[in-house]
């Protein structure tokens, strides 16, 4: 399993790519492996305001429905339009083509609570 060093992570198994005050969010390789074949993705709309800990969207595998929680607060500025038609991108390209959305942060301070790759790997090893 792959956990790129340039990304940040959460205990809810999301990855975050930080580019100034805009972040890109997706689910980790560990999360997609646990879910199995992803068959449906529900995303918010551009312009929606997300609050940390609230539901951001839904990822469904053949067997299960999983909520995805917003790791940070902010406004959705872009969503991955390819996902509704190709939800399997979450499995095949979790960190690249399977990105879920981009968020313009409203409180950048929240970034301090994110895990780095080593911390995240330690977390899933214990979990």
């Amino acid at each position, binding site marked *: 399993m792959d956990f790129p060093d340039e990304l940040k992570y959460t205990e809810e198994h999301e990855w975050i790519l930080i580019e100034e005050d805009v972040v890109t969010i997706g689910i980790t390789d560990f999360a997609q492996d646990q879910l*199995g*074949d992803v*068959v*449906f993705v529900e995303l918010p709309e551009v312009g929606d305001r997300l609050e940390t800990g609230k539901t951001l969207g839904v990822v*469904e*595998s053949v*067997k299960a*429905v999983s909520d995805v929680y917003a790791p940070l607060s902010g406004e959705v500025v872009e969503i991955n339009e390819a996902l509704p038609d190709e939800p399997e991108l979450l499995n095949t390209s979790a960190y690249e083509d399977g990105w879920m959305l981009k968020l313009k942060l409203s409180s950048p301070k929240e970034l301090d609570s994110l895990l780095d790759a080593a911390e995240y790997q330690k977390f899933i090893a214990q979990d």
Partner: protein
Amino acid sequence: MKKTVLNQLHHLAGARMMEFGGWEMPVQYAGVIAEHLAVREAAGLFDVSHMGELEVSGPQAFDFLQYATINDVASLADGQIQYTALCYPDGGVVDDLTLYRFSAERYLLCVNAANSDKDFAWLRQLCADSNFTELELSNRSSEYAQLALQGPRAAEILARLTTADLTDLKYYWFAEAEVAGVATIVSRTGYTGEDGFELYCPTAGGVVLWQALLAAGAPLGLQPAGLGARDTLRLEKAYALYGHEITAGIHPLEARLAWITKLNSSDFVGRQALLEAKKKGLKRKLIGLQLTEPGVPREGYPVLCDGREVGRVTSGTMSPCLKVGIALALVETAFAAGEQALQIGIRKRQVAAERVKPPFVK
């Protein structure tokens, strides 16, 4: 949790394991969709050793089974199999099962894992209450391993390991034969809608049989398959699963099982209640629904008509073959057919669904 004789092999193969009916079972190896498609296009091998096997034998075995089950046992010949069910007096379903006739005085019932103890207790009680004395009931579940070899190439694979003549073995018939040197009941049945076999062998022979089949089948595309694919495969063919489409609270006529409910043959437990239910007219019916918008229907989701709940999904999934959401749903009879548009409530959305005559995949 109980473990099948193949448990260690599943772990070694990297299968994801889960609890099912009191057993630790593989839910997937390579992935549900890959395994599903392997079964539709080539072949898959399932460990179904969790299934229960109950034996009924003795001079009154026939009379007893004719009384305990809803199908007509008289239509069975030696070596033939029948899909049937046990009902309660009120018509609710105890379990659905396949009934194997070895002789007029010896039968094997293959029942659902989670129900095997309940079924055995139910049969013993029926037997005692109805004064069947020349009869022996035994729960032989722990004595058998059971593997399901399913898919269009199943016969070709099995033929490499047995001298039994498979071309003569018709659907819902069985033969006793050696497979890879293991004494096996070779049953031309399955739960996937594909050609295939369910193979019963002494528990100790399960590992040899599993490994021999995988080795013989690998060049033909055979893959191990888990309960995840077993569920999506049966749902595409609209086969009922106990606890979902049929329960103690859903009777066989509601669940599209009138074809195994022989109300005009001899008396059986539940017959009176089912005759009355039929006379009054069914309140609910099981139907097939296919989403016409993106989404995945799941058990328990409401079926809606003009915003009113008219039924519930009993099983649903994303069909790996059709790539759309499919569901079996128990709905009020007035909405089972006709033109009124139906939706399935998925979280906050109402997703359009059209009635489809099952099976979803022909």
